[in-house]
């Protein structure tokens, strides 16, 4: 089996960490205006219910998010119960 130089590996870890830190910062900023569970197709990936969620037009597809992102999305989230809604991984 091949081996890797620990110092060289650490450089990659540092690079990945810097890259991910920027993504987290952006995710934090974005979460102020857009629900983080909403994907690029405006589908909902949450496992909990939300008032903005509508059934998908196609069987097996993710539900649709109808939020326009102009209002705070968080009050729409259903906060009771712990029965997961079945969603597919994006």
């Amino acid at each position, binding site marked *: 089996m091949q*081996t*890797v130089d*620990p110092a060289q590996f650490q450089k990659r870890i540092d690079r990945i960490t810097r890259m991910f830190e920027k*993504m987290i910062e952006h*995710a934090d900023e974005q979460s102020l205006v857009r629900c983080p569970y*909403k994907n690029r197709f405006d589908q909902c990936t949450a496992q*909990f219910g939300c008032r903005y969620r509508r059934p998908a037009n196609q069987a097996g597809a993710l539900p649709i998010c109808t939020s326009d992102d102009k209002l705070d999305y968080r009050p729409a989230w259903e906060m009771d119960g*712990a029965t997961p809604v079945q969603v597919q991984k994006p």
Partner: protein
Amino acid sequence: MADINDIANESIRKEIEEFVERPEEKGEMIAVMARARPSMQDIGAAIIQGHHETVDKLTEAALAEGIDALEIMDDGLINGMGIVGIKFRDNFIFVPEVLACARAMKAGMKHIEPILSASGIEPVGRVIMGTVKGDLHDIGKNLCIMMLRGAGFEVFDLGVDTSADKFIDAVEEHGANVIGMSALLTTTMPNMGRTIEAFIDADLRDDVQFMVGGAPVTPEFADDMGADAYGETAVECVEVAKRLSVKK
């Protein structure tokens, strides 16, 4: 100077042309991708698409071919995530897609881990993560996991609605000494304290360190419930986990 047509993978060419808008970034991306061998470009393309099964197979095949693990990291996994980062920053993709890409990256790293072990490189720490019982909100936890894995931690994700028993079982199974609990709801937040109490009852409290976080959680609440540390953001979570890992 490299040209976009020097990149063998069509999907990568399209990604750069369509989504990398800043000229200096486009030039840099073309240069690094064109330098990468085609099989590494394929890994990068699968990362960008969030296709974890493809990354899994391609990484395994690349290692079997004798390609250096660091080359796979640089030219496949990291290059791919580089484009993911640009697409996310410029709002072409969002958190769910980023998490799918991170999952794909993990699928590749899984094959590199045995090489790290053979090289004497151990994980920075072992962390068990879960959203507490009654709570189904997992984005914050998942972003923490992405950061932790990126920083070299081995993370065991228990998902959402995690009971105290599941946390206890996971500690016994994986031997991790740091537990990260997240909650988004004020109604489920007390389950963090209940989980800690369950560890006391099971006589396991001294074996683990608890870090907690989530929108309604405060340092004071964390302290009151007996947690060892509080992290406000996913970035902070890494430093907290490092500190706690050293403690045991």
